[in-house]
């Protein structure tokens, strides 16, 4: 990749029909950066999960609120920002899906998958409101723990 530090920004309305679009942009970008197909697959899944959360929990399906996705790419890593305009939340209060009491809960695995597949996942609450999920993946990847 050359130049390093390129930025791609994508903004969609809060409608699930656009999740696929963000995923396909993600695929194109991870290919540009040179991630292998396996890593690219899981980065794509993590982006889907975060965008779905932004649409559903953040913007609460209000199509007038956008979801903004920013990709900052370089030779050896990708950093992805997913921003919504919701009320924010406390990630430390999200129940652990591996807890036996949650094992059969149909919900609650999205953030866990993001944390599994990406090297770093942070949740920021900008003063302007909403949530920004920041996910980093380096190319010399740790294994996904499988």
């Amino acid at each position, binding site marked *: 990749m050359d130049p390093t530090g390129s930025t791609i920004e994508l903004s969609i309305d809060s409608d*699930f029909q656009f999740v696929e679009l963000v995923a396909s942009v993600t695929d194109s970008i991870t290919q540009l950066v040179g991630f292998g197909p396996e890593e690219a697959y899981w980065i794509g899944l993590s982006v889907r999960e975060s965008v779905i959360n932004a649409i559903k929990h953040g913007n609460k399906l209000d199509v007038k609120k956008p979801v903004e996705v920013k990709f900052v790419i370089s030779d050896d890593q990708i950093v992805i920002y997913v921003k919504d305009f919701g009320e924010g939340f406390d990630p430390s209060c999200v129940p652990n899906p*591996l807890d036996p009491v949650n094992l059969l809960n149909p*919900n609650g695995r*999205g953030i866990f998958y993001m944390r599994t597949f990406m090297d770093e996942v942070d949740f920021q609450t900008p003063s302007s409101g909403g949530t920004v999920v920041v996910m980093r993946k380096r190319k010399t990847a740790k294994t*996904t723990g*499988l």
Partner: protein
Amino acid sequence: MSLVINQRTIGEVTILDLSGKITIGVGNVQLREAIKKLLEAGNKKILLNLADVSYVDSSGIGELVHSFTTTSNAGGTLKLLNLTKKIQDLLAITKLLTVFETFSNEDEAVASFK
């Protein structure tokens, strides 16, 4: 592309051949409806064939869990056949391989319900 569900019966076992995606807003309603109808009709031995499921996200995994618990609560049994590598990974990561009985051979899967 959404989810296509084909239904087959072998003995007492109903096999649902799923083809397509199970993700948020895609496939989950169809799968719920199909399971509900089977249970209402008294078909309580259900095998989900996932061979042609092209994509599953956390919502899709949630739908599999939901199908499982609905069936169990109705006194039935739901098992999984032909997991793709990715579905296997997603189930393993969230410790769901310990919950689901899974098979890679249809005859064995059907026989296991006896």
